């Protein structure tokens, strides 16, 4: 277990002039923390992980693990363990040999190897599969072997590169729980890479959202959900994604409002927005409410019943809008619903940069551009 520090870490596959796969990545990861790197494909999350593992060299910047500068060290000298997306189990070796390989390479005593492998096998429910070859295992079992291979080494940090993406939905949830349990039990420092925001929200002590090689925001899951730093984070976290409406901000004699075509929404308190500024108004689908007092009317175009909740797609003052309510059986496509925007749930962003113009009353401090 160890603390990890990344200072201005950058990576370019085309030399010092870029283009940059990762640019000026700064992050402090506490001992025992489970950090999730999340973002769309090509955002640099796996490259960052590979730089921490030593599989990719950094173009610039420093990486320290447990106070030790490992920037120039090969993977074998970093004492990290990694779980790969496609498991990367050695096909010619049995489950036992796969798990024992790392210990044998490091010259551990035979009895110690046996003790550790069997202990890991018991904890991961693999003790009856030790003689099997990887091809004889199911996806979930292979993933557990990959975890076991990391576990036996007792590494400083665990790096998990999209370990659940090859599993079916049901197994993914199960393995997610197992990883969370494992982390709670070991208290190890873990970095988990995923493109699935649900995995990120449920697993991470903190989440780092990346796009185009830059950190967009880093924080606790609910911080990101409640106070997204920009429109990208706002759209990425939360499902269905946040409704974003482009409009203009007006301050007319103390009354603050955003106008977007026929839509006019009152803003409760001061923000960073200036009168006349082009802004993007955001509200999450689950925060819209049906209120008979509201003058705003949403025409329902599509109703999706998913059991506990009802998803609606509709048009509100000419804007496409998603809404999520507790199960409502009576709503049909074509219905008109009076919709209200609770002012404490509104988000405001600058249209040009996408950065948050945070509505003051809901946040402790304003401005959360982690790495702009």
């Amino acid at each position, binding site marked *: 277990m160890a603390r990890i520090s990344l200072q201005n870490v950058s990576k370019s596959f085309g030399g010092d002039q870029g283009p940059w796969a990762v640019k000026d990545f700064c992050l402090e990861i506490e001992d025992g923390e489970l950090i999730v790197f999340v973002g769309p494909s090509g955002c640099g999350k796996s490259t960052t992980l590979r730089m921490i*593992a*030593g*599989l990719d060299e950094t173009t610039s910047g420093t990486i320290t693990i447990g106070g030790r500068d490992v920037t120039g060290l*090969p*993977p*074998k000298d970093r004492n*990290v*363990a*990694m779980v*790969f*997306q*496609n498991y*990367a*189990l*050695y*096909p*010619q070796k049995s489950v036992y040999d796969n798990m024992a*390989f*790392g210990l044998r*390479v*490091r010259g551990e005593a035979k009895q110690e190897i046996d003790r550790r492998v069997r202990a890991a096998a018991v904890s991961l429910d693999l003790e009856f599969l030790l003689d099997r070859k990887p091809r004889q295992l199911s996806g979930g079992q292979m993933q557990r072997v990959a975890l076991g*291979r990391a576990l036996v*080494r007792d590494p400083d940090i665990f790096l998990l590169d999209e370990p659940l993406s090859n599993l079916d939905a049901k197994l993914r949830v199960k393995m997610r729980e197992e990883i969370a349990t494992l982390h709670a039990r070991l208290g190890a420092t873990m970095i988990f890479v995923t493109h699935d925001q649900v995995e990120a929200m449920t697993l991470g002590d903190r989440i780092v959202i990346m796009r185009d090689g830059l950190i967009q925001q880093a924080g606790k899951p609910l911080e990101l959900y409640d106070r997204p730093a920009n429109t990208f984070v706002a759209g990425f976290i939360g499902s269905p994604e946040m409704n974003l409406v482009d409009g203009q901000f007006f301050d007319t004699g103390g009354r603050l409002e955003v106008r977007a075509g026929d839509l006019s929404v009152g803003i409760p308190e001061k923000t960073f927005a200036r009168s006349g500024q082009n802004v993007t108004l955001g509200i999450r689908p689950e925060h819209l409410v049906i209120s008979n007092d509201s003058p705003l009317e949403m025409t329902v175009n599509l109703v999706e019943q998913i059991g506990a909740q009802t998803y609606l797609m509709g048009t509100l003052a000419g804007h496409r809008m998603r809404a999520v309510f507790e199960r409502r059986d009576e709503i049909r496509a074509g219905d008109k619903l009076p919709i209200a925007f609770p002012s404490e749930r509104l988000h405001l962003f600058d249209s040009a940069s996408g950065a948050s113009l945070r509505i003051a009353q809901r946040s402790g401090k304003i401005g959360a551009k982690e790495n702009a």
Partner: protein
Amino acid sequence: MKSHVERLPIDSDAQVPGREPIRYQPSSRYGKGVQEKTFWKSFKKCSMKFGLYIAVLAICLYSFFPIYWMMISSVRPSQRLFLDSSLVFWPPDFSSYVSLFQQTNYIANFINSVLMAVGTIVVSIVLSAFVAYGATRLRFRGKTTLVASMLFAYMFPPLMLAIPMAAAFRSFGLTDTLWGLLIAHLAISLPLAVWLLWGFFKSMPFDLEEAAMVDGCSQFEAFIKVVLPLSAPGLITVAIFSFLLSWADYVFALILIMSDQRKTLPVALESLLGAHDLRWGEVLAGASLIALPLFLIFIFCYRYFVAGLSAGAVKG
């Protein structure tokens, strides 16, 4: 037993108001016309299959008959070689084989051929594995062009390569030596071996050796401990092709080797064909012995042989 047609309810939907009654039509599945159609279809399929078998048989006969004729002729007595043209000869007569061993340096030539083949296999495997691995895993400019240009040598007939080689070897003192011949064989087998293994390593996921490196191996150790054991099929393919190239080589041995003691089997066999004395029985016996290891290899390593050919065909 009642047929399916009889059990079908006729006009079953007639009572449904507002719907056109569906009139019974004989099921096309059981119609006479369709039965005929099906018969012709299956007949066509069968005849196509039959035709294919005949074609394959003809090609096999065309390819194997000379080999069969060589073998059957090698066990005919020399005096009956041109008189008896029966396809089966019994009992076999091994006098040509005995004469071959008595009159030629067969054992020495066989050892030379084995030495050349084993040397070509070992050096080809070792060097091509490292070169191909480097070509797939290291980043450098013009990598693909470099690997593709290795096959450049195959654009020229062996004779065109052998003559300048003979001239070059003279300056290095390698004329009429087995070392020189080994280098010549490697010049042909190495590019092909690199090409084959390049395709093989390219298709192997990087994750495995990366996992090994994270587990504590250096890149070299990961190559030796993880990549090489998994590359056995590719290495066997390389071994087979290297063996074939060396074992069946005639041109390089003819140009580069002069002394009888250093001749390999194909060239030694040629020396039996004198200007006045054509000893066909011994020649055919020798040719059969040369072909024997090839047969054995083909039988036991058929899978890798085909895999190697297809790897060369689709990868790259």
